Protein backbone atom coordinates (compact mmCIF):
# COMPACT_ATOMS: atom_id res chain seq x y z
CA UNK A 1 0.00 0.00 0.00
CA UNK A 2 2.85 2.37 0.92
CA UNK A 3 4.67 1.43 -2.28
CA UNK A 4 1.55 2.24 -4.29
CA UNK A 5 1.15 5.59 -2.55
CA UNK A 6 4.83 6.44 -3.11
CA UNK A 7 4.47 5.49 -6.77
CA UNK A 8 1.49 7.84 -7.17
CA UNK A 9 3.35 10.67 -5.44
CA UNK A 10 6.44 10.01 -7.57
CA UNK A 11 4.41 10.08 -10.80
CA UNK A 12 2.79 13.37 -9.76
CA UNK A 13 6.20 14.79 -8.87
CA UNK A 14 7.60 13.65 -12.22
CA UNK A 15 4.73 15.50 -13.90
CA UNK A 16 5.54 18.63 -11.94
CA UNK A 17 9.30 18.45 -12.57
CA UNK A 18 8.62 17.65 -16.23
CA UNK A 19 7.07 21.10 -16.70
CA UNK A 20 10.50 22.60 -16.13
CA UNK A 21 11.77 21.05 -19.37
CA UNK A 22 9.75 23.27 -21.70
CA UNK A 23 6.82 25.07 -20.15
CA UNK A 24 7.99 26.63 -16.90
CA UNK A 25 11.38 27.84 -15.77
CA UNK A 26 13.92 25.71 -17.64
CA UNK A 27 16.16 25.50 -14.59
CA UNK A 28 17.03 21.87 -15.48
CA UNK A 29 15.08 20.35 -12.57
CA UNK A 30 13.53 18.09 -15.20
CA UNK A 31 16.85 16.53 -16.15
CA UNK A 32 17.36 12.83 -15.31
CA UNK A 33 20.43 13.69 -13.20
CA UNK A 34 18.12 15.48 -10.73
CA UNK A 35 14.89 13.48 -11.15
CA UNK A 36 16.73 10.18 -10.60
CA UNK A 37 18.13 10.82 -7.09
CA UNK A 38 15.01 12.71 -5.95
CA UNK A 39 12.63 9.90 -6.90
CA UNK A 40 15.16 7.33 -5.71
CA UNK A 41 15.28 9.05 -2.32
CA UNK A 42 11.49 9.16 -2.15
CA UNK A 43 11.29 5.45 -2.95
CA UNK A 44 14.09 4.22 -0.70
CA UNK A 45 16.79 3.66 -3.34
CA UNK A 46 18.73 6.95 -3.60
CA UNK A 47 21.96 5.37 -4.86
CA UNK A 48 20.27 3.46 -7.67
CA UNK A 49 18.18 6.53 -8.46
CA UNK A 50 21.27 8.72 -8.72
CA UNK A 51 23.08 6.15 -10.83
CA UNK A 52 20.15 5.63 -13.20
CA UNK A 53 19.67 9.38 -13.38
CA UNK A 54 23.22 10.36 -14.27
CA UNK A 55 23.61 7.52 -16.77
CA UNK A 56 20.37 8.52 -18.49
CA UNK A 57 21.56 12.14 -18.37
CA UNK A 58 24.81 11.22 -20.12
CA UNK A 59 22.92 9.55 -22.95
CA UNK A 60 20.15 12.17 -23.14
CA UNK A 61 22.50 15.16 -23.49
CA UNK A 62 23.06 13.91 -27.02
CA UNK A 63 19.63 15.30 -27.94
CA UNK A 64 19.15 19.04 -28.34
CA UNK A 65 15.71 20.70 -28.50
CA UNK A 66 16.39 23.09 -31.38
CA UNK A 67 13.95 24.34 -33.99
CA UNK A 68 10.82 22.81 -32.51
CA UNK A 69 12.26 19.28 -32.49
CA UNK A 70 10.82 17.16 -29.67
CA UNK A 71 13.71 15.19 -28.19
CA UNK A 72 13.26 12.01 -26.11
CA UNK A 73 12.00 12.96 -22.66
CA UNK A 74 14.59 12.63 -19.88
CA UNK A 75 12.09 13.15 -17.05
CA UNK A 76 9.90 10.27 -18.21
CA UNK A 77 12.99 8.10 -18.71
CA UNK A 78 14.34 8.71 -15.20
CA UNK A 79 10.95 8.44 -13.48
CA UNK A 80 9.99 5.19 -15.20
CA UNK A 81 13.51 3.79 -14.71
CA UNK A 82 13.55 4.48 -10.97
CA UNK A 83 9.96 3.30 -10.40
CA UNK A 84 10.44 0.14 -12.47
CA UNK A 85 13.19 -0.70 -9.99
CA UNK A 86 11.60 0.48 -6.74
CA UNK A 87 7.95 -0.40 -7.36
CA UNK A 88 8.24 -2.90 -10.23
CA UNK A 89 10.95 -4.93 -8.51
CA UNK A 90 13.13 -5.14 -11.62
CA UNK A 91 16.93 -5.01 -11.36
CA UNK A 92 18.51 -1.59 -12.01
CA UNK A 93 20.03 -2.77 -15.29
CA UNK A 94 16.71 -3.76 -16.86
CA UNK A 95 15.00 -0.71 -15.32
CA UNK A 96 17.59 1.50 -16.99
CA UNK A 97 16.88 0.10 -20.46
CA UNK A 98 13.13 0.33 -19.84
CA UNK A 99 13.70 3.97 -18.83
CA UNK A 100 15.52 4.71 -22.10
CA UNK A 101 12.63 3.24 -24.08
CA UNK A 102 10.04 5.09 -21.97
CA UNK A 103 11.75 8.44 -22.58
CA UNK A 104 11.97 7.85 -26.31
CA UNK A 105 8.33 6.73 -26.50
CA UNK A 106 7.13 9.86 -24.70
CA UNK A 107 8.31 12.15 -27.54
CA UNK A 108 5.40 11.29 -29.92
CA UNK A 109 2.92 11.90 -27.07
CA UNK A 110 4.53 15.27 -26.41
CA UNK A 111 4.23 16.11 -30.12
CA UNK A 112 0.50 15.34 -29.96
CA UNK A 113 0.11 17.63 -26.94
CA UNK A 114 1.97 20.45 -28.68
CA UNK A 115 -0.12 20.00 -31.83
CA UNK A 116 -3.31 20.06 -29.76
CA UNK A 117 -2.30 23.43 -28.30
CA UNK A 118 -2.38 24.98 -31.79
CA UNK A 119 -6.16 25.27 -31.56
CA UNK A 120 -5.72 27.54 -28.52
CA UNK A 121 -4.58 30.31 -30.86
CA UNK A 122 -8.03 30.81 -32.38
CA UNK A 123 -9.71 30.58 -28.97
CA UNK A 124 -7.33 33.07 -27.35
CA UNK A 125 -7.66 35.53 -30.25
CA UNK A 126 -11.44 35.34 -30.03
CA UNK A 127 -11.31 35.93 -26.28
CA UNK A 128 -8.94 38.91 -26.59
CA UNK A 129 -11.05 40.36 -29.42
CA UNK A 130 -14.08 40.20 -27.15
CA UNK A 131 -12.26 42.31 -24.55
CA UNK A 132 -11.13 39.62 -22.10
CA UNK A 133 -7.34 39.92 -21.90
CA UNK A 134 -6.54 37.16 -19.45
CA UNK A 135 -3.96 34.77 -20.97
CA UNK A 136 -2.98 33.23 -17.66
CA UNK A 137 -5.71 30.60 -17.55
CA UNK A 138 -4.83 29.26 -21.03
CA UNK A 139 -1.22 28.80 -20.06
CA UNK A 140 -2.21 27.22 -16.74
CA UNK A 141 -4.52 24.83 -18.57
CA UNK A 142 -1.79 23.87 -21.03
CA UNK A 143 0.59 23.13 -18.15
CA UNK A 144 -2.03 21.16 -16.24
CA UNK A 145 -2.68 18.93 -19.26
CA UNK A 146 1.04 18.34 -19.77
CA UNK A 147 1.49 17.58 -16.05
CA UNK A 148 -1.40 15.10 -16.04
CA UNK A 149 -0.18 13.42 -19.23
CA UNK A 150 3.31 12.92 -17.82
CA UNK A 151 2.00 11.61 -14.48
CA UNK A 152 -0.38 9.17 -16.17
CA UNK A 153 2.31 8.02 -18.58
CA UNK A 154 4.79 7.34 -15.77
CA UNK A 155 2.15 5.42 -13.81
CA UNK A 156 1.12 3.36 -16.84
CA UNK A 157 4.69 2.47 -17.77
CA UNK A 158 5.53 1.60 -14.17
CA UNK A 159 2.51 -0.72 -14.12
CA UNK A 160 3.70 -2.37 -17.33
CA UNK A 161 7.19 -2.77 -15.88
CA UNK A 162 5.71 -4.40 -12.77
CA UNK A 163 3.75 -6.81 -14.98
CA UNK A 164 6.93 -7.54 -16.93
CA UNK A 165 8.61 -8.41 -13.65
CA UNK A 166 6.00 -11.14 -13.07
CA UNK A 167 6.90 -12.92 -16.31
CA UNK A 168 8.34 -16.37 -15.59
CA UNK A 169 11.89 -16.87 -16.81
CA UNK A 170 12.68 -13.16 -17.02
CA UNK A 171 15.73 -13.71 -14.83
CA UNK A 172 17.33 -15.29 -17.88
CA UNK A 173 17.89 -11.79 -19.22
CA UNK A 174 19.58 -10.42 -16.11
CA UNK A 175 23.24 -11.47 -16.68
CA UNK A 176 23.26 -9.92 -20.16
CA UNK A 177 21.41 -6.78 -19.05
CA UNK A 178 23.73 -6.37 -16.04
CA UNK A 179 26.82 -6.57 -18.22
CA UNK A 180 25.45 -4.12 -20.80
CA UNK A 181 24.53 -1.77 -17.94
CA UNK A 182 28.12 -1.89 -16.64
CA UNK A 183 29.30 -0.55 -20.03
CA UNK A 184 26.81 2.33 -20.17
CA UNK A 185 28.95 4.80 -18.11
CA UNK A 186 31.62 4.46 -20.77
CA UNK A 187 29.12 5.04 -23.54
CA UNK A 188 27.97 8.17 -21.71
CA UNK A 189 31.52 9.40 -21.23
CA UNK A 190 32.13 8.84 -24.92
CA UNK A 191 29.15 11.05 -25.77
CA UNK A 192 30.37 13.75 -23.43
CA UNK A 193 33.93 13.64 -24.77
CA UNK A 194 33.09 13.62 -28.47
CA UNK A 195 30.46 16.36 -28.11
CA UNK A 196 33.07 18.87 -26.90
CA UNK A 197 35.88 17.49 -29.02
CA UNK A 198 33.80 18.12 -32.13
CA UNK A 199 33.24 21.72 -30.99
CA UNK A 200 36.93 22.33 -30.39
CA UNK A 201 38.15 20.85 -33.64
CA UNK A 202 35.36 22.18 -35.84
CA UNK A 203 36.79 24.21 -38.69
CA UNK A 204 35.57 27.71 -39.47
Amino acid at each position, binding site marked *: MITLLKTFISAALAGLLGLDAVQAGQFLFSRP*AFVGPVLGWLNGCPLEGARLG*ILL*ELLYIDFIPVGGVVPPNGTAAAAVGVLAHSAGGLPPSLSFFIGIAAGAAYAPLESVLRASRSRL*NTLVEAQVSSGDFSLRRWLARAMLVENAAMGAYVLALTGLAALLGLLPGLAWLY*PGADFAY*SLIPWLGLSGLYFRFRAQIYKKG
Partner: protein
Amino acid sequence: MLFSMFLRSFFIQAGWNYERFQNLGFAFSLQPALEKIYPDREKYKTALLRHLQIFNTQPYMASFVLGNIIRMEERAAVDGGAELKTLPGVKQALASSFASIGDRIFWGRLKPMTAQICLLVWAACGFYGWLFTGMNEDVPVGLLLAGPLAGIAVYSVFSLYIRWKGLVDGYACGGANNCALDSANWPRLIRLLSAAGFAMSLAIVLLSFALLAVFNCVSCRPGDVLLKLGLPAAVLALHRVLRALGRSVFFTAGLLLIISVLLFSALKLEPFRLYL
Protein backbone atom coordinates in the same frame (compact mmCIF):
# COMPACT_ATOMS: atom_id res chain seq x y z
CA MET B 1 7.39 46.68 -15.30
CA LEU B 2 10.64 45.00 -16.40
CA PHE B 3 10.70 42.80 -13.30
CA SER B 4 7.15 41.64 -13.90
CA MET B 5 8.07 40.80 -17.50
CA PHE B 6 11.19 39.02 -16.23
CA LEU B 7 9.07 36.77 -13.99
CA ARG B 8 6.55 36.09 -16.73
CA SER B 9 9.33 35.21 -19.20
CA PHE B 10 9.86 31.96 -17.28
CA PHE B 11 6.57 30.82 -18.84
CA ILE B 12 7.36 31.89 -22.39
CA GLN B 13 7.02 28.32 -23.62
CA ALA B 14 3.99 27.37 -21.51
CA GLY B 15 1.69 27.45 -24.52
CA TRP B 16 4.24 26.22 -27.10
CA ASN B 17 2.40 24.99 -30.19
CA TYR B 18 3.28 23.97 -33.72
CA GLU B 19 1.26 26.72 -35.35
CA ARG B 20 2.80 29.82 -33.74
CA PHE B 21 5.37 28.37 -31.34
CA GLN B 22 5.97 30.71 -28.33
CA ASN B 23 3.35 33.32 -29.26
CA LEU B 24 1.10 32.79 -26.22
CA GLY B 25 3.97 33.02 -23.73
CA PHE B 26 5.46 35.99 -25.56
CA ALA B 27 2.20 37.94 -25.42
CA PHE B 28 1.75 36.92 -21.78
CA SER B 29 5.24 38.25 -20.94
CA LEU B 30 4.54 41.56 -22.69
CA GLN B 31 1.17 42.14 -21.00
CA PRO B 32 2.35 44.21 -17.97
CA ALA B 33 4.20 46.62 -20.27
CA LEU B 34 1.49 46.82 -22.94
CA GLU B 35 -1.11 47.54 -20.26
CA LYS B 36 0.98 50.48 -19.07
CA ILE B 37 1.81 51.78 -22.57
CA TYR B 38 -1.78 51.60 -23.85
CA PRO B 39 -4.27 52.74 -21.18
CA ASP B 40 -6.90 52.77 -23.92
CA ARG B 41 -8.49 49.29 -24.06
CA GLU B 42 -8.90 49.24 -27.85
CA LYS B 43 -5.25 50.10 -28.44
CA TYR B 44 -4.20 47.56 -25.82
CA LYS B 45 -6.30 44.91 -27.55
CA THR B 46 -4.75 45.67 -30.95
CA ALA B 47 -1.25 45.52 -29.46
CA LEU B 48 -1.94 42.21 -27.71
CA LEU B 49 -3.36 40.68 -30.90
CA ARG B 50 -0.28 41.91 -32.75
CA HIS B 51 1.92 39.84 -30.45
CA LEU B 52 -0.21 36.71 -30.64
CA GLN B 53 1.32 36.10 -34.06
CA ILE B 54 4.10 33.59 -34.71
CA PHE B 55 7.21 33.90 -32.55
CA ASN B 56 10.03 31.49 -31.80
CA THR B 57 13.48 31.81 -30.31
CA GLN B 58 15.68 30.25 -27.65
CA PRO B 59 13.73 30.65 -24.37
CA TYR B 60 16.50 32.33 -22.33
CA MET B 61 17.38 34.72 -25.16
CA ALA B 62 13.75 35.74 -25.69
CA SER B 63 14.25 38.49 -23.11
CA PHE B 64 16.48 40.41 -25.56
CA VAL B 65 13.55 40.52 -27.98
CA LEU B 66 11.04 41.32 -25.21
CA GLY B 67 13.01 44.37 -24.07
CA ASN B 68 13.44 45.58 -27.62
CA ILE B 69 9.78 45.20 -28.52
CA ILE B 70 8.63 47.11 -25.45
CA ARG B 71 10.80 50.06 -26.36
CA MET B 72 9.38 49.97 -29.90
CA GLU B 73 5.82 49.83 -28.57
CA GLU B 74 6.53 52.84 -26.34
CA ARG B 75 7.71 54.81 -29.38
CA ALA B 76 4.74 53.62 -31.43
CA ALA B 77 2.36 54.90 -28.75
CA VAL B 78 3.97 58.35 -29.08
CA ASP B 79 4.53 58.61 -32.84
CA GLY B 80 1.11 57.31 -33.80
CA GLY B 81 2.24 53.94 -35.11
CA ALA B 82 5.07 54.69 -37.59
CA GLU B 83 7.39 52.48 -35.55
CA LEU B 84 5.00 49.56 -36.03
CA LYS B 85 5.93 49.23 -39.71
CA THR B 86 9.39 47.94 -38.84
CA LEU B 87 8.37 46.03 -35.70
CA PRO B 88 7.61 42.59 -37.28
CA GLY B 89 10.88 42.61 -39.23
CA VAL B 90 12.99 43.58 -36.21
CA LYS B 91 11.22 41.01 -34.05
CA GLN B 92 11.82 38.22 -36.56
CA ALA B 93 15.45 39.18 -37.24
CA LEU B 94 16.35 39.32 -33.56
CA ALA B 95 14.48 36.11 -32.73
CA SER B 96 16.48 34.18 -35.35
CA SER B 97 19.84 35.69 -34.39
CA PHE B 98 19.40 35.17 -30.65
CA ALA B 99 18.05 31.64 -31.18
CA SER B 100 21.24 30.70 -32.97
CA ILE B 101 23.42 32.18 -30.20
CA GLY B 102 21.30 30.74 -27.38
CA ASP B 103 21.19 27.23 -28.81
CA ARG B 104 24.96 27.13 -28.97
CA ILE B 105 25.54 28.54 -25.52
CA PHE B 106 22.81 26.85 -23.50
CA TRP B 107 21.83 23.61 -25.26
CA GLY B 108 25.16 22.88 -26.93
CA ARG B 109 27.51 23.75 -24.09
CA LEU B 110 26.11 24.75 -20.70
CA LYS B 111 23.58 21.90 -20.47
CA PRO B 112 26.15 19.12 -20.97
CA MET B 113 28.41 21.00 -18.56
CA THR B 114 25.87 20.54 -15.74
CA ALA B 115 26.42 16.78 -16.03
CA GLN B 116 30.18 17.34 -15.96
CA ILE B 117 29.91 19.50 -12.86
CA CYS B 118 27.79 16.81 -11.20
CA LEU B 119 30.42 14.14 -11.95
CA LEU B 120 33.26 16.35 -10.78
CA VAL B 121 31.50 17.19 -7.49
CA TRP B 122 30.88 13.49 -6.88
CA ALA B 123 34.48 12.65 -7.77
CA ALA B 124 35.80 15.38 -5.47
CA CYS B 125 33.75 13.88 -2.63
CA GLY B 126 35.01 10.37 -3.39
CA PHE B 127 31.85 8.90 -4.92
CA TYR B 128 32.51 6.77 -8.01
CA GLY B 129 29.44 4.52 -7.86
CA TRP B 130 28.11 6.00 -11.08
CA LEU B 131 31.08 4.53 -12.97
CA PHE B 132 30.95 1.05 -11.48
CA THR B 133 27.33 0.01 -11.72
CA GLY B 134 27.56 -3.07 -9.51
CA MET B 135 29.25 -1.20 -6.68
CA ASN B 136 27.05 -0.73 -3.62
CA GLU B 137 28.31 1.86 -1.21
CA ASP B 138 26.71 3.70 1.64
CA VAL B 139 26.46 7.19 0.19
CA PRO B 140 24.70 10.09 1.97
CA VAL B 141 21.65 11.35 0.11
CA GLY B 142 23.01 14.89 0.50
CA LEU B 143 26.01 14.01 -1.62
CA LEU B 144 23.89 12.30 -4.27
CA LEU B 145 21.79 15.45 -4.56
CA ALA B 146 24.73 17.86 -4.25
CA GLY B 147 26.16 16.78 -7.63
CA PRO B 148 23.14 17.60 -9.81
CA LEU B 149 22.24 20.65 -7.68
CA ALA B 150 25.73 22.11 -8.18
CA GLY B 151 25.28 21.80 -11.96
CA ILE B 152 21.81 23.34 -11.77
CA ALA B 153 23.10 26.20 -9.61
CA VAL B 154 25.86 27.14 -12.05
CA TYR B 155 23.50 26.88 -15.01
CA SER B 156 20.73 28.85 -13.33
CA VAL B 157 22.96 31.72 -12.23
CA PHE B 158 24.11 32.13 -15.83
CA SER B 159 20.64 31.75 -17.37
CA LEU B 160 19.04 34.17 -14.88
CA TYR B 161 21.76 36.72 -15.57
CA ILE B 162 21.27 36.43 -19.33
CA ARG B 163 17.49 36.69 -18.96
CA TRP B 164 17.71 39.88 -16.94
CA LYS B 165 20.54 41.41 -18.99
CA GLY B 166 18.62 40.65 -22.17
CA LEU B 167 15.59 42.50 -20.94
CA VAL B 168 17.58 45.56 -19.80
CA ASP B 169 19.89 45.71 -22.83
CA GLY B 170 17.06 45.07 -25.28
CA TYR B 171 15.02 47.85 -23.68
CA ALA B 172 17.99 50.23 -23.81
CA CYS B 173 18.60 49.89 -27.55
CA GLY B 174 15.11 48.96 -28.75
CA GLY B 175 14.21 49.51 -32.38
CA ALA B 176 17.42 48.54 -34.09
CA ASN B 177 17.77 45.39 -36.20
CA ASN B 178 21.00 44.50 -34.42
CA CYS B 179 19.85 45.65 -30.95
CA ALA B 180 21.85 44.04 -28.12
CA LEU B 181 23.54 41.59 -30.45
CA ASP B 182 26.78 43.25 -29.35
CA SER B 183 25.96 43.19 -25.64
CA ALA B 184 28.51 40.42 -25.18
CA ASN B 185 31.33 38.92 -27.19
CA TRP B 186 29.26 35.86 -28.07
CA PRO B 187 31.82 34.08 -30.32
CA ARG B 188 34.44 34.42 -27.59
CA LEU B 189 32.04 33.18 -24.93
CA ILE B 190 31.10 30.19 -27.10
CA ARG B 191 34.78 29.36 -27.68
CA LEU B 192 35.53 29.66 -23.96
CA LEU B 193 32.65 27.38 -23.02
CA SER B 194 33.74 24.83 -25.63
CA ALA B 195 37.28 24.85 -24.25
CA ALA B 196 36.08 24.53 -20.64
CA GLY B 197 33.70 21.72 -21.58
CA PHE B 198 36.40 19.86 -23.47
CA ALA B 199 38.87 20.22 -20.60
CA MET B 200 36.30 18.87 -18.13
CA SER B 201 35.38 16.00 -20.48
CA LEU B 202 39.01 15.06 -20.86
CA ALA B 203 39.57 15.22 -17.10
CA ILE B 204 36.55 13.00 -16.41
CA VAL B 205 37.50 10.41 -19.06
CA LEU B 206 41.13 10.26 -17.84
CA LEU B 207 40.01 10.03 -14.21
CA SER B 208 37.62 7.21 -15.10
CA PHE B 209 40.29 5.18 -16.87
CA ALA B 210 42.72 5.84 -14.01
CA LEU B 211 40.14 4.60 -11.50
CA LEU B 212 39.48 1.52 -13.58
CA ALA B 213 43.20 0.78 -13.75
CA VAL B 214 43.60 1.27 -9.98
CA PHE B 215 40.64 -0.97 -9.18
CA ASN B 216 41.96 -3.70 -11.48
CA CYS B 217 45.62 -3.36 -10.59
CA VAL B 218 44.98 -5.31 -7.42
CA SER B 219 44.82 -8.51 -9.44
CA CYS B 220 48.04 -7.68 -11.32
CA ARG B 221 47.16 -10.18 -14.04
CA PRO B 222 48.03 -8.43 -17.29
CA GLY B 223 45.33 -10.28 -19.26
CA ASP B 224 42.63 -9.21 -16.82
CA VAL B 225 43.78 -5.61 -16.74
CA LEU B 226 44.00 -5.41 -20.53
CA LEU B 227 40.53 -6.85 -21.01
CA LYS B 228 38.94 -4.58 -18.44
CA LEU B 229 40.63 -1.46 -19.77
CA GLY B 230 40.12 -2.56 -23.37
CA LEU B 231 36.38 -3.07 -23.10
CA PRO B 232 35.54 0.53 -22.14
CA ALA B 233 37.95 1.76 -24.82
CA ALA B 234 36.13 -0.46 -27.31
CA VAL B 235 32.81 1.06 -26.23
CA LEU B 236 34.22 4.54 -26.89
CA ALA B 237 35.46 3.43 -30.32
CA LEU B 238 32.13 1.74 -31.16
CA HIS B 239 30.22 4.88 -30.24
CA ARG B 240 32.57 7.03 -32.30
CA VAL B 241 32.12 4.81 -35.37
CA LEU B 242 28.34 4.55 -35.04
CA ARG B 243 28.08 8.30 -34.44
CA ALA B 244 30.02 8.91 -37.65
CA LEU B 245 27.53 6.63 -39.40
CA GLY B 246 24.69 8.80 -38.11
CA ARG B 247 23.41 6.37 -35.46
CA SER B 248 22.10 7.78 -32.20
CA VAL B 249 23.48 6.91 -28.79
CA PHE B 250 20.34 4.83 -28.14
CA PHE B 251 21.27 2.60 -31.07
CA THR B 252 24.67 1.96 -29.51
CA ALA B 253 23.07 1.26 -26.11
CA GLY B 254 20.64 -1.18 -27.73
CA LEU B 255 23.47 -2.88 -29.59
CA LEU B 256 25.44 -3.30 -26.35
CA LEU B 257 22.36 -4.82 -24.71
CA ILE B 258 21.75 -7.27 -27.55
CA ILE B 259 25.39 -8.40 -27.70
CA SER B 260 25.55 -8.78 -23.90
CA VAL B 261 22.31 -10.77 -23.76
CA LEU B 262 23.56 -13.03 -26.56
CA LEU B 263 26.89 -13.64 -24.83
CA PHE B 264 25.89 -13.86 -21.18
CA SER B 265 22.26 -14.96 -21.29
CA ALA B 266 21.96 -17.06 -24.45
CA LEU B 267 25.47 -18.50 -24.73
CA LYS B 268 25.83 -18.57 -20.92
CA LEU B 269 29.38 -17.16 -20.81
CA GLU B 270 30.59 -16.45 -17.29
CA PRO B 271 29.73 -12.79 -16.57
CA PHE B 272 32.44 -10.61 -15.01
CA ARG B 273 32.69 -7.12 -13.58
CA LEU B 274 34.82 -4.32 -14.92
CA TYR B 275 36.39 -3.86 -11.48
CA LEU B 276 37.45 -6.19 -8.71
